[in-house]
């Protein structure tokens, strides 16, 4: 009784500053994400005229600027924003769930499962007979399978998940699936190996809004769950016992955290391949800037992740134009040193 009585006023006291901080943070990061997303479609290897893009008097088929804007750039920017937000948020949630700063959306084997699915679709020729969507579906199936295995291993009815089992099962499954991926690649033809290796580097040039629309419901569902998690994650990241003592349904929170991050990761990887580094570097960058409160870190990471990936893709498609750098290389090359610099400066 005494704890709850003393806790109540404290929460109430923190309530107003939190709201204010949240508003300021969201406004700041939101403005950043919006600015990047508005700027990115205007910049590219070619300069286009916005007036011409929206000039209705020119038929769409004749309007090169409009085609570049709507077919080439807009889908890329939207895919980048969605994937960046999904991976960064999944990173935040998993780092809290596993209480491990090294956790990434790919730690739990989801990306390797997803990659295996895509590799199989590419090398068995499913993309030839069933179309490119088959690799998206196969990749999502692989991700779900991996998530289901890890979940099954780490969950006991009515009990909290074992985070160490979760972590070890994920890491083991990653290695296992990676070996299968290598096997599939080794057995495949050269041309397919090339397509497969390229897939692993990540690519946001999806070419239409179709694939984005297909992934959107999954990402929205994941974010709907993310929205109810932050307060429980705050307590969970201190420790499962502390969280339970404060009235958190630990088992339920863990399951929701796991399922939502697996869902977001699966959707992101199926759409754009396993783009590395966003899921680990963005959450830490954001924490260095706004502190550790998940009520702020989670939305800020989603917005910053979106801005970060869209910006990286902008670099990827303009730096060496007409040669394009796979975006997964850019995220690591830009994100790594920046993160280290911030780490040293703070240290």
């Amino acid at each position, binding site marked *: 009784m005494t704890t709850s009585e003393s806790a109540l006023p404290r929460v109430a006291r923190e309530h107003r500053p939190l709201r204010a901080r949240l508003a300021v943070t969201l406004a700041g990061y939101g403005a950043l994400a919006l600015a990047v997303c508005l700027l990115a479609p205007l910049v*590219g*290897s*070619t300069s286009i005229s916005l007036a011409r893009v929206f000039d209705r008097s020119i038929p*769409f*088929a*004749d*309007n*090169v600027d409009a*085609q*570049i804007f709507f*077919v*080439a*750039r807009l889908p890329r920017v939207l895919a980048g924003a969605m994937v960046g937000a999904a991976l960064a948020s999944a990173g935040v949630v998993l780092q809290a769930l596993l209480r491990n700063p090294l956790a990434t959306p790919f730690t739990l084997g989801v990306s390797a499962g997803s990659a295996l699915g895509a590799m199989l679709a*590419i*090398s*068995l*020729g499913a*993309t*030839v007979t069933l*179309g*490119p969507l088959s*690799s998206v579906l196969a990749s999502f199936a692989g991700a779900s399978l991996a998530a289901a295995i890890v979940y099954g291993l780490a969950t006991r009815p009515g009990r909290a998940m074992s985070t160490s089992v979760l972590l070890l099962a994920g890491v083991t499954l990653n290695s296992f699936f990676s070996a299968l991926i290598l096997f*599939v690649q080794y*057995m*495949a*033809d*050269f*041309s*397919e*190996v*090339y*397509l497969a290796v*390229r*897939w692993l580097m990540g*690519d946001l*040039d*999806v*070419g*239409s809004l179709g694939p984005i629309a297909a992934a959107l419901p999954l990402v929205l569902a994941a974010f709907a769950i993310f929205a109810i998690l932050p307060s429980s994650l705050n307590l969970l990241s201190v420790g499962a016992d502390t969280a339970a003592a404060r009235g958190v349904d630990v088992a339920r929170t863990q399951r929701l955290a796991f399922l939502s991050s697996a869902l977001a990761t699966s959707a992101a990887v199926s759409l754009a391949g396993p783009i590395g580094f966003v899921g680990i570097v963005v959450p830490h960058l954001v924490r260095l800037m706004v502190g550790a409160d998940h009520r702020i870190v989670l939305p800020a990471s989603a917005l910053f992740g979106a801005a970060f990936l869209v910006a990286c893709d902008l670099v990827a*498609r303009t730096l060496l*134009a*007409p*040669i*394009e750098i796979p975006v997964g290389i850019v995220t690591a090359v830009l994100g790594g040193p920046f993160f280290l610099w911030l780490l040293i400066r703070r240290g």
Partner: protein
Amino acid sequence: MAAHPKRLILVAALMVATGGLTASGSAGVQVSGTERPAPARIISLVPALTEMLFAIGAGPQVIAVSSYDNFPAEVKALPKVGALLDPDTERILSLRPDLVITYGSQGELESQFARAGIRTFSYRHGGVPIVLETLRALGAATGHAVEADRTAREIQAQLDDIRARVRGRARPRTLLVFDRQPQSLQQMYVSGGVGFLHEMLEIAGGSNVFADVRREAVQPSHELLIVRAPEIILEVRAAGLLAADDVRRERGVWSALGSVPAIRNGRILFLSGDYLVVPGPRVAQATAAFARALHPEAFR
């Protein structure tokens, strides 16, 4: 895993693998050990060079080939001893060859053979002149210099004939696609301004829209495809990679980029055949196929 000829895919992959590294002038041929009797037991790990061996009359000396070889028909009966990434060294040694034809990136393998006292003929893909140069070098190395020179001259004459036929005609801006994810415009590999496909296209009277990119393979984004606005899209694939049904479906994929002249005018051309993507003695035949596609009126 899918059942289609692997050999040409090897070539396409090699082009990608060596992209940017093998400019046409720098690609070369090196024979280790000279002034010895003509080899009687040749193993070829490079399909394009296997074709050359048979074209210059050295076929009877060939005792084994790579796992990607399937042309000419004679090679089907020969033992297969691995390829670029997985040469079966033991098997090769046990066949007691006196000349092994290797790819330039197989340096470790070459030094192994050198230690075993086996001559190697090291090759890297380059432009069309490299094909002719390699033919002659191979002739010299296998005791078929005269036939090799004759074959090279024939190829040169055929290429000159193609050049003459298309001379003075408008050179359509052409996108030469040699691989992409089926039913998608993603993960596309097209010819840049270096290498045998680019040179074949230029001889055939086309103007490569990526001629300015000094690489063998370019991976264009949707944006680049729109901006480069080719007048003709020429897709080439190894036999078996593109059936007639596929062509109709694959042609439809392009409709997403309606402003590109080739797409608006329906000038998306598909060529399928093993010979199209092998820098071997059939290079003139392949160039002629390109030229017929780009300039049908020149061949009436």
